[in-house]
């Protein structure tokens, strides 16, 4: 049995079009398992075809700038220091000092305890501060600790919260628990945007990616995000494609735009452009904005800047000139 996406145009979740789907654990399970399946041969074939798109000249330059403006410039290391975060923020504001026309990135993404440092460093720049929370990256802690973690990030001034779902609960079929947790974190976010990390590398295939995407959307995720970056594989084109189809279907059903963030493993401009092609042709041109599509990356920015200079100057720039972040 397939659950077709119903037509009414109202907000999703508990009070909206999908109120019946999220009533209890059983309804949630019925709904998620009633979603159309994903044929892995077909989805990978479409991704491979989209990857052959040849983006050249002015469309490439536009894509490079678009990709830069969509980056969540990320540092999530145990060795992070306030100094490192400040220098990352300087790069986020003005990615290529020799070329002031290069757009700033969308956000800087840090651990919650460093959110305040980033907020200070980015004041007035228009660059958002995102903080990971909820016992990132594993999500293995109590609800209370996760909410406290979220509160720490919000108090630090983070405007965007990147939470992880409880994969253990998801994989054992306790969808209600995952849903409730997202709802609780969303509430703790207040006005901050909530990105929900599915950690697709730990899920069991594309059907799971679709179910987890819908689960997060139902629970109020503003953005669904592939990965923490700590697990491989992270963002792959077919996985991102399935998630883009989920937000497209959500929009068809509710009229609401929700975003996607591809995080982890995207290191080259070429790969980033392939993702933009997927966004363009699968979700649609509406999603080609930093509000609705993000790259979670650290090394990507350097390659985008190198490629940008190559486009303008006709020769490559060496690694010493523009390094990785």
């Amino acid at each position, binding site marked *: *049995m*397939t659950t*077709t*996406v119903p037509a009414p145009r109202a907000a999703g979740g508990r009070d909206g079009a999908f109120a019946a789907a999220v009533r209890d654990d059983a309804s949630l399970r019925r709904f998620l398992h009633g979603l*159309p*399946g*994903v*044929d892995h*041969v*077909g*989805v990978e*074939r*479409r991704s491979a075809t989209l990857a*052959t*798109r*040849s*983006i*050249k*000249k*002015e*469309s*490439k330059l*536009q*894509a490079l700038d*678009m990709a830069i403006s969509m980056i969540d410039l990320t540092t999530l290391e145990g060795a992070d220091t306030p100094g490192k975060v400040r220098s990352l923020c300087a790069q986020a504001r003005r990615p290529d000092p020799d070329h002031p026309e290069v757009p700033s990135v969308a956000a800087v993404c840090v651990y919650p305890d460093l959110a305040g440092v980033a907020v200070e460093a980015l004041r007035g720049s228009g660059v958002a501060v995102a903080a990971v929370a909820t016992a990132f990256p594993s999500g293995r802690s109590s609800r209370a600790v996760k909410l406290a973690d979220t509160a720490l990030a919000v108090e630090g001034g983070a405007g965007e919260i990147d939470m992880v779902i409880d994969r253990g609960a998801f994989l054992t079929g306790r969808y209600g628990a995952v849903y409730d947790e997202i709802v609780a974190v969303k509430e703790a976010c207040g006005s901050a945007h909530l990105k929900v990390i599915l950690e697709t590398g730990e899920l069991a295939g594309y059907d799971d990616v679709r179910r987890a995407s819908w689960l997060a959307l139902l629970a109020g995720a503003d953005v669904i995000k592939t990965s923490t970056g700590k697990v491989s594989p992270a963002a792959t084109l077919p996985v991102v494609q399935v998630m883009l*189809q989920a937000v497209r279907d959500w929009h*068809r059903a509710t009229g609401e*735009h929700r975003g996607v963030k591809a995080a982890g493993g995207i290191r080259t401009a070429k790969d980033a452009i392939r993702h*933009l092609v997927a966004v*363009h*042709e699968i979700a649609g*041109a*509406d*999603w*080609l*904005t930093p*509000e*609705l599509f993000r790259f979670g990356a650290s090394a990507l920015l350097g390659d985008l800047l190198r490629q940008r200079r190559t486009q303008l100057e006709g020769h490559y720039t060496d690694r010493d000139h523009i390094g990785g972040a």
Partner: protein
Amino acid sequence: MAAPSWEYAPAPESAALANLKPAYRPFVDGEFVDGGGEPLKTLNPATEEVLAEVGTASTEDVDRAVAAARRAYEQVWGPMPGAERAKYLFRIARVVAERARELAVLETLDNGKPIRESRDVDVPTASAHLFHHAGWADKLGYAGLGPDPRPVGVVGSVIPWNFPLLMAAWKIGPALACGNTIVLKPAETTPLTALVLAEIAADAGLPPGVLNVLPGAGDVGAAVVGHDGLDKVAFTGSTDVGKEIQRRLAGTGRRLTLELGGKAANIVYDDAPLDQAVDGVVDGIFFNQGHVCCAGSRLLVQESIEQEFMELLHARIETLRVGDPLDKNTDVGAINSRPQLDKIVDLAAAGDAEAPGAGPAPARCPNAASSSRPPCSPAWSRPCAWRARRSSARCSPC
């Protein structure tokens, strides 16, 4: 939520890669010869400009080619051990792979199909097919045909314009691997890659007469398939012509293989992975501009998912990029010839008459030059779909 518009800049493959020559000639008995027929001009369907002049065969040329093929079969190719035949075929397959880019561009120029398809499908598949059959040449004793299978003899073959090089490889590969010789007539509108394949065969040292390529129109085709010097006829093309050949060969004792049009139905049930089913339908009917003998020209959808499925399908069709076949981002190229385009326009009109206003697609049809994506000659047709009111309708179910 205003996203910036992002158009893909033109990314054309260079036409110069095709090494196009001003004139091409028939290949008979190991040589390119002046055919006795009236030369034809082959067009680039995307621009309707003349690509090259191609010599065609007369009845005498057909006789000479069949005689040469007979001689080659009896004296050289038939008696040759399979392992030796394989060496020639492997060589041809390798050169097809090496010259893949040139062949892909030439195919796109002559046929109008997008370079993405000729590059990623037609040419690599043709080469793979030749490799495959080359490998069989010395293993025929183990193919389930008995311990010592014999070749049939001289094969006459007529192929269509939808996959010119690939169809040539489909005919030549197995025929030659099994020890037969062949007289091949490529389609009138797409003779060029088969003639380059003949050149590759000649360069590979294939003995004279084993492969003969005779360009020409239907009359040459009729002379080939009706020739009484053949042992077997293999035809890929229209059902009508196939029936004609079948009548012609009935009672002659000559063997016949026909691969004819079989437009088929896609069937989608409510438990299908919908997005991939949509892609399957799109690939099924819009691949190669729909010029596929088994194109999925009909769509049967379970009623419970009809509305959602058609919404997704129409949205997906919107993303197809119609335009310059040489552009690497083109999904749907030019229609191969005027008569084909007329047929499509006619069917589109039938679709509109059958189901006026039955969905967003018909408004985008038929065949107007695409305004957003130049260049456009008259040889373009927008992809579209109709919802039929009765299953006997000519279009969609046509």
